[in-house]
Every structure is written in C-alpha cells, then in structure tokens.
C-alpha cells in the first residue's frame, strides 16, 4: 500500500480535516505554536491571557519544545524540533480546545480513542503524530521563521510558547479521524494476535506487584 501525501494548512478548513484518513502523511504550512504542560497551566489554571489570536492565527497546537536559543540581539536559532508524548496532556486539552479552537493537535504517540470521541470529534479536530520519534532535523528544516517566543522568562525555554512559521513542515502521520478512530489502537489490535505466542512458556513472576493492568493487549497510557 502506498501512503497518501497531503499538504495541509495550520488553519485548515473543516472539509480539509474531513478528508484526512488514518495513516496519511501530512506536511504543514502556516503558523504553529507550541504548548505543553507549562503553557496549559499558565493559561488555564493561572488564567494568563494567551498572547496570540487563536484560532485565527493558528489552529495547530504542537506538543513540542524545540532545541533552540534566543540570541543576545533577540533573534532566534532553532535547530531540531521534536514532539513530546501527548497522552499526559489529556487533563488540559478539552478546555484548551474549547478556548483556542485548536483543530490540529500535533505530538508524539497520540491520545486514546476515548479522548478522540469525547472532545476531538465534537471540536472537529484531529491528531497528527510526528514520525520516528523523532525526525527533529527534518522538522527543523520546515521552520521558515521563528515569529515569537512567549512566556520564556516565566516557564523556561523548554516550556515556553514558541510561534513557528512552517513551510511544508513534516512528515506527520494522521493518527485520528473525525470518526474518533485511533491509528495506534488499530495497530495494537493487529499485534495483539501474537501476544500469546511470544509469551508462551513464561509464567508470572513469583513476587507480584500491585498493578494497574495485567492484560498485555491493554496499553499503559
């Protein structure tokens, strides 16, 4: 099977989002901002004013902190760009989406299909996963310009809100769709068929641990 390649705006139309299928390869053009726990806490818990016009400037939230520096003259150097695992942000995402109109959540590893059905689909949003992880240098090449960095003094460079102008940045993989289906869960289900075979002959450890899951077809996120 050949994978479909799609160019997408960071302020995509509902039609463009509806077109996306699980496993499509996407390249993004337009403004994208980084926001992870630091930004979510500051904007949602401390109620700080978000320093951008969202979603008109950008509907793409990248779970990322880049390898970048701020030069003494105030200019930026951005090297590699890689995502961080998104499942930890489920606590803040519903409110963030409602507040900012984000339609593209870009990160590592995706969310659960329950997250997708509960608040991605109602908001007309999908999840794009980075590839690898991570293709930091390739994504870095897609940075046309660093437009701004917000809250770096309050949050540090890694948690700051970076505003990036992307020019065909990618590759990303479509990991959820408007049915709320999850690419990773689809793959897990295929792999689950092999679990009994690879575990054959092993037995549970003599010393048990209090555990949250003993089902190997389950996930730990």
């Amino acid at each position, binding site marked *: 099977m050949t994978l479909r390649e799609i160019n997408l705006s960071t302020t995509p139309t509902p039609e463009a989002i509806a077109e996306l299928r699980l496993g499509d390869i996407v390249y993004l053009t337009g403004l994208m901002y980084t926001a992870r726990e630091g930004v979510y806490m500051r904007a949602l818990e401390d109620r700080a004013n978000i320093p951008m016009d969202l979603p008109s400037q950008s509907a793409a939230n990248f779970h990322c902190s880049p390898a970048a520096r701020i030069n003494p003259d105030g200019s930026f150097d951005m090297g590699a760009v890689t995502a961080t695992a998104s499942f930890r942000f489920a606590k803040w995402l519903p409110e963030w989406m409602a507040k900012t109109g984000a339609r593209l959540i870009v990160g590592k590893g995706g969310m659960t299909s329950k997250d997708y059905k509960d608040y991605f689909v109602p908001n007309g949003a999908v999840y794009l*996963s980075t590839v690898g992880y991570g293709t*930091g240098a390739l994504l870095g090449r897609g940075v046309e310009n660093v437009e701004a960095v917000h809250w770096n003094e309050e949050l540090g460079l890694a948690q700051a809100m970076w505003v990036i102008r992307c020019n065909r940045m990618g590759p990303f993989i479509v990991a959820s769709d408007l049915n709320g289906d999850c690419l990773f869960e689809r793959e897990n289900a295929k792999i689950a068929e092999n679990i009994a075979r690879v575990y054959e002959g*092993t037995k549970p450890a003599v010393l048990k641990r209090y555990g949250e899951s003993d089902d190997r077809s389950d996930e730990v996120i």
Partner: protein
Amino acid sequence: MIPISLIQSTAETLMDKAAIEIPQDYLDGLQHAAKTEDGDLSSFVLKAMLDNYQAAKEDRRAMCGDTGVPRWFVKLGNAARVEGGMVALETALRRATANATNGVPLRPNRVHPLWRTDHDNNVGIGAPEIEYGFEPDGAWIDLITVHKGGLFGTDYRMLFPSDGVQGIKRFYLDSLMAFGKRGLACQPAIIGIGLGGSKDACMALGKRASTLRIVGSRNTDPRIAEMEDEFKELGNSIGMGAMGFVGKNMVIDCNIEVGYCHTGGMPMSVHAFCLSSRRAVARIHADGRVEHRTDPNWFTPYQRRETVDWAPQQEAAE
C-alpha cells in the same frame, strides 16, 4: 598532565557530535532493519529516520529536538593526571554541557523535579551525571557523552532465582510491550538488560548495556552472548515495529550485562536507547593527542573482573 582546557574543548566537540552524528554501528543496524521491514507504516518511519540522520549531518543540527538527559562517563587509565584535579574536570564537563546547550543548540531539558526551575543550560543539581571507571594501564582519559532519551522504555523488577530465564524473558517482553506501543520507547532501539547487582547498580548496568555497548558486540560469557541473540530475535518476533506499527523491527540489538547480586534475588532492569542513540567518545592522551570514536569500549575484562586482585597476566591472556 592533561590540560584542563583540552578536556573542556574536547567535551564541547563531543556534545556536538553526539547530538548531530548517528553512530555508524547503529546506522548500519537501522539500514539493515529498513531493508527487511515490510510493514508499510513502519517502513515509512525507518526511511524518514534515515533521511533525518542525513539532514542532521548536512545542516549540522541536532537529530532530535528532545536532547534527552546529557551525561558523562569518564574512564581513566591508572596513570592519568588532570590539570587541576578531578574537581577541575567536573567543572569542565559541566561548563561544556552548558556551552553546547546554547551552542548547538540543544534543548535545555533539565529542571528541578519539584520547582521546575530551568537554568536553560542542562546543568543543575546532579546534572549532568558524571560516572567514573578506571583501567589498570595508561595515562589517557576517555570522555564519553551519552544523551539518552528519556521518560519511557525503562523498567526495573526484583526477580528471584525461581523465576529463571523464563521470568527474565517475560519481564523483557513486558517492557517492550508496555513502552513499544505508540512507539513511546522510540524503537527500534538498542535494548540493554541489567541482571544482578544491588538495585541501583542493576539499573546502572542495564543503562550501560544499552548506551555503552555497540550494535553487534557480544558479552564475553558465551552463554550470555547466546541469550543476547535469542532475546534480540524474541523482541523482533512480537510483530511490532517503529512507532508501535505492525512490523518486524523492534530491537536493533540486545546487550546484557551482569553483576553479582544477593544470593536470594535476581534483580533485572530493561533500558531502551532511542532511534537517535546519541553517544560520542574521545580518548585524550597524556601528550595531548585526541582520538575520536563512537565505541565507548566500556566493558573491558577489568570492568567485568570477578577476582579480588587484578593480575596483569590475566589481562595479557585475554
């Protein structure tokens, strides 16, 4: 006497090389994986990673935006002497870490665990970690930097002799299953297994097995070497590949290191080095020569010694 300025400048070069240049042994392993992979999505991922290594080298930019946690392993020949002593050496390594964070640039990942204070330079309390080893001969210093990624792919469990090899296999599979899904472990990776030691040493052994041994190396104990082959194959037979997509390549290599443990136990740790496998090594000789390489060659006969005394003739016989 090795000049301290040479230690710092070499360390800065190593930070740069580790972040940008994929080690050849791992690249060969991944290229082989890319040839054998037939899952459509996992093949795409491996190809993108190979493109990424190329882009990093061409642009001299970091392979990955997540710098991991940069750290140092320092090995000294018994006759090595450092200008200013070991405190000066530690200062030089901390300074090199901070300078390279701004210079490459790398992501300033290191924060206080509670207050989340970020000095924006990857230096702080206990950061970067600096660990030491010694060798009986030589007046050289080996500087090894490893930028191991992070949050997933590593686990520890106290097993017992009655768990046997089947118990070891099961915990190994558990770690791959738990962290392989969605590609949280950034596989296919070099998987390191630590067996034995005390709990903390067990973690260190596994980490060193994944980061300080190269693809294709084998433990000098032939029965452990056999286990390494078997475990590599077992991991690759799960049916899971890059990013947790259906595929054949989960483990680029499996390295096992052991240490003597409590007679009643069999502690085990599992570590996944990532798709960027960032390590770089330089030997600084007493006369100021610097030789760069990517094989840490950490696990020498001396590091794995079992006896009370180290007999030099024993080394000659190896």
